[in-house]
C-alpha cells in the first residue's frame, strides 16, 4: 500500500539471492507492492528499510478487533471511499445497549436476542455480535452487569467514564478483549493506562473532530495502537459529516490521528426504534465501524443485516449459491423441474417467485461460477453440453415420474443442443423474466 514496486525495490539489498523465494529483488518488490509477499521473507533487508517499509505499508485505517473467538468483530482496515473502487472489507458490528439500571429479566432478554436473531442466507449466518454495557453511575450494579455478560460468547463494549469502575470491569472480562468506551479529555491519562495494562482496544470520545485528533495523538503517544473514534455529534447531519470527514482524512490525506474505525450511537439520536433503524442504515452505508442500537427485534435488525450484507459484498466477485436440487413448496414426483444458474441474485428472485406461485417445484441450480443465465450462456457455461450432463448427474430423474425440464427464457438458444444431450426428455422454454414464473407454473402439466 502506498509504495510502488520500484520504490520498494530501492530499499531492498538488490543482490538477487533468491532466498525469499522470488527470483530477483525486483520480482520480490513487485510481489510486496501487490500484497502477495511479506517483507520477513527477505533475510537481508536492513532495519532502516524495514521501518520505512512497514510505516508505508501500514493500512490507512487501522484494523481493530473487539472480542475473541467466534464473536470477535474486526472493524476498520478499509481502503476506499466507495465500494465500487475495490470493496469494503470489515462489516460494522451491531451492538445492543444494556444498562446496569435494567432488571435482570430484561438483561437476559437482551442477551437472548443475540442468540435468537441469526439468519441463514447465501450460506452465511447473518447476526448481530456485540453487547454495549453502560454504567449509569452505580459501580456495584455495573460490575454485576459485566459479571452476567462475561459467560456469554458475544463481544463486549464497556461504557463508563469512571476509571475505577472501568478498572473493576476490566478485571472481570479483559481476556475477552472488550472495547473500552471511552477516553475523554477529562480521563484520558487514566483510561490510556487501563487500555495499555489490559491490552484492550480503547474508544476515544471528543466533543468534535479537533478533540478527537488531540486525544488520538495523545493516546498513540502513550503507545496505544488500537483506537476507535467517536467525534461526538448526535445530530444526523453532524454525525454523517463526521463519518465522511474521518474516512476522507484517513484515506485521502493519510492523516494518522484519524486512521481508525468509528463507533456510532443511533440509540442516542432518535426517540423511536423506527427512526433509529434508518439512522443506523445511513451508518451501514457510510462508514461506521460499530453501530449501537437501543434494542434488537427481528423487524429492525433483519433489514440492517441485509443492508450490511449488500453493501459489504465484494463487487468484484459475484455471490453464488451452492449447486444442487432445491425443493420448493414440498414438490413430489409430479412436480415441474426447472433449471437455472447459481448467481445468487438469480437464485433469490427465481425461488421467491416460485414460492409466490405456491406451485410445488424442483429447482435445479447449476454451478455457473456466479454468472447470470445470459452471461453464463455467452461464456459457454450454460449451454447444452454443460446443462445436459448436470441434469443427468444431479439425480433429479429419480425424484420425478416424468421427463420434463423447463429452461430459462433467456437460454432458449440451447434448446436443440440440450435435446440431443438429454434424449427422451421433453424440454420447454420458460419465461424470460422470473416475475412471469407464477403464471407459467400454474399452467404447467406433468
Amino acid at each position, binding site marked *: 500500500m502506498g509504495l510502488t514496486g520500484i520504490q520498494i525495490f530501492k530499499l531492498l539489498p538488490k543482490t538477487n539471492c533468491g532466498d525469499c523465494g522470488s527470483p530477483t529483488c525486483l520480482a520480490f518488490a513487485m510481489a510486496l507492492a501487490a500484497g502477495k509477499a511479506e517483507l520477513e521473507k527477505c533475510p537481508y533487508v536492513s532495519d532502516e528499510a524495514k521501518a520505512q517499509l512497514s510505516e508505508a505499508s501500514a493500512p490507512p485505517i487501522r484494523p481493530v478487533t473487539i472480542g475473541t473467538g467466534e464473536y470477535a468483530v474486526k472493524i476498520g482496515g478499509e481502503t476506499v471511499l466507495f465500494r465500487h473502487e475495490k470493496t469494503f472489507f470489515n462489516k460494522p458490528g451491531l451492538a445492543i445497549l444494556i444498562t446496569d439500571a435494567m432488571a435482570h429479566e430484561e438483561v437476559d432478554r437482551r442477551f437472548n436476542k443475540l442468540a435468537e436473531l441469526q439468519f441463514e442466507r447465501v450460506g452465511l449466518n447473518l447476526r448481530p455480535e456485540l453487547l454495549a454495557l453502560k454504567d449509569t453511575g452505580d459501580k456495584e450494579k455495573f460490575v454485576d452487569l459485566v459479571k452476567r455478560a462475561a459467560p456469554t460468547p458475544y463481544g463486549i463494549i464497556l461504557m463508563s467514564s469512571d476509571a475505577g469502575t472501568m478498572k473493576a470491569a476490566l478485571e472481570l472480562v479483559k481476556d475477552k478483549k472488550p472495547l473500552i468506551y471511552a477516553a475523554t479529555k477529562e480521563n484520558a491519562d487514566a483510561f490510556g493506562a487501563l487500555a495499555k495494562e489490559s491490552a484492550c482496544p480503547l474508544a476515544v470520545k471528543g466533543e468534535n473532530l479537533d478533540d478527537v485528533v488531540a486525544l488520538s495523538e495523545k493516546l498513540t503517544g502513550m503507545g496505544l495502537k488500537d483506537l476507535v473514534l467517536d467525534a461526538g455529534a448526535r445530530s444526523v447531519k453532524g454525525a454523517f459529516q463526521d463519518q465522511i470527514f474521518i474516512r476522507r482524512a484517513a484515506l485521502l490525506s493519510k492523516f494518522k490521528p484519524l486512521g481508525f474505525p468509528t463507533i456510532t450511537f443511533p440509540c442516542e439520536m432518535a426517540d423511536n426504534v423506527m427512526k433509529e433503524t434508518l439512522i443506523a442504515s445511513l451508518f451501514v452505508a457510510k462508514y461506521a465501524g460499530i453501530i449501537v442500537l437501543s434494542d434488537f427485534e427481528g423487524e429492525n435488525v433483519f433489514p440492517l443485516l441485509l443492508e450490511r450484507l449488500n*453493501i459489504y459484498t465484494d463487487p468484484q466477485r459475484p455471490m453464488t449459491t451452492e449447486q444442487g436440487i432445491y425443493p420448493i413448496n414440498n414438490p413430489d414426483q409430479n412436480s415441474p423441474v426447472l433449471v437455472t444458474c447459481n448467481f445468487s441474485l438469480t437464485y433469490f428472485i427465481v425461488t421467491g417467485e416460485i414460492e409466490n406461485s405456491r406451485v410445488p417445484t424442483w429447482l435445479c441450480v447449476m454451478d455457473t461460477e456466479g454468472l447470470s443465465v445470459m452471461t453464463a450462456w455467452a461464456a459457454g457455461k450454460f449451454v447444452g453440453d454443460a446443462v445436459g450432463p448436470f441434469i443427468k448427474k444431479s439425480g433429479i430423474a429419480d425424484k420425478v415420474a416424468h421427463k420434463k425440464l423447463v429452461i430459462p427464457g433467456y437460454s432458449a438458444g440451447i434448446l436443440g443442443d440440450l435435446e440431443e444431450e438429454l434424449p427422451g426428455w421433453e424440454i420447454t422454454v420458460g419465461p424470460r423474466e422470473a416475475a412471469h414464473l407464477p403464471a407459467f407454473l400454474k399452467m404447467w402439466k406433468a
Partner: protein
Amino acid sequence: MAFQIPKINYTGKIKEVSIGSGSHAIKVGGESCYPFHLFEGAMPNPPRVAFEVWDYPPEEWQEWAIEPYKDVINDPVAWAKKSQDTYGAELIALLLKSADPNGMNRDVEQVVATVKSVADAITVPLLVWGCVNDEKDAALLRRVAELCEGKNVAIGPLVEKNYKQIGAMAIGYNQVVMASTPIDVNLAKQLNILLGNLGMPDDRMLIDPTTGGLGYGLEYSYSVMERDRMAALTQEDVKLQYPLVCNMAHEVWKTKETKVKKEDNPKLGDEKKRSILMEAVTAMSLLVAGADILIMRHPDAITLVRDMIKELTN
C-alpha cells in the same frame, strides 16, 4: 484544527428538471456535490418521494400494505387523491400495470383513460410508469404524452428499443422522460446520448438506473448510482448529469421477507414494521447513493424517509 479535511473537487453539476405545472410544480436535481455533502456543495432541491398508485386493485399486496389505501384501492383516482390530500404526497407515480401483455393486457385506450382522469384529479406532479413491455409501452406512453399535454408529466421507462417512438412524442408535447437501462453506467450514458440526438432537451430527462430491493441486488443499484454521480460531478460526464429516479416499492414489497408473518417466523419480528423498515432502509441506501426521486408505497415508510431527508438537509 491545524488539519484540513480534504474536499472533493467537483467540476460538474446535475441538471435541474421541473415536473408538473402551476404552483405545485417541483424541481429535482441541481446538486453540485455528493448526496447530503452540504459542507462542500449545494443540494438546492431535496430528494422527493413519489407515492405509488396502481391502475388496478393490487389484490396480491400484503394486507398491511393495502390497509392505508383500503377505502380507495379500487379507484386509482381516489387513491391518488388520498395520497395527495391525506398523506401529503408531493408527487404521484401511476403504474400502468394493467397494460402488461403477460398479465391483464388491458388495451391502450382503456389504460390511458385512467391516466387522464388521475392527471385531471390531482394538483401535484405526475409520473407515469408503463408496463415495462417495450412494444406495449411504445404505444401506451405515446398516447400518455399526447393526452397529458400541458401537464408536464414524467413518462417512462424509455428503453433502447422504444425511446424513439416515446421520445418524439414527449418532445412534441413537452413532457419529461425517464430513461431506463439495466444497472450499467455506459448503457445509461448511451441512451441519454441517443435521446439528446433525438432532440430531447437536457432539462427534461431523468435517469432510471434500475433498482434492486434490499437483499435482492440493492448493492448493484447502489454502486451504479454512486458511479453515475462520480462521473457526473467529478469527471465532467455531461451525459450523466441528470436526476436519478428509483422505482423501488415493488422491488421491496414483492420479496418473501415482506410477506412472511411473525407467527410463521417469529425471529423476523412484526411483519408490518419489518416491511416498512425494509422499504425505508432501501430508500435510505438509495438516497445516499444519489436518488432524486423515490417511488414508494407505505405512508409510514415515506414519513420516516422524509424525516431523514429533512435531518440531512436542514
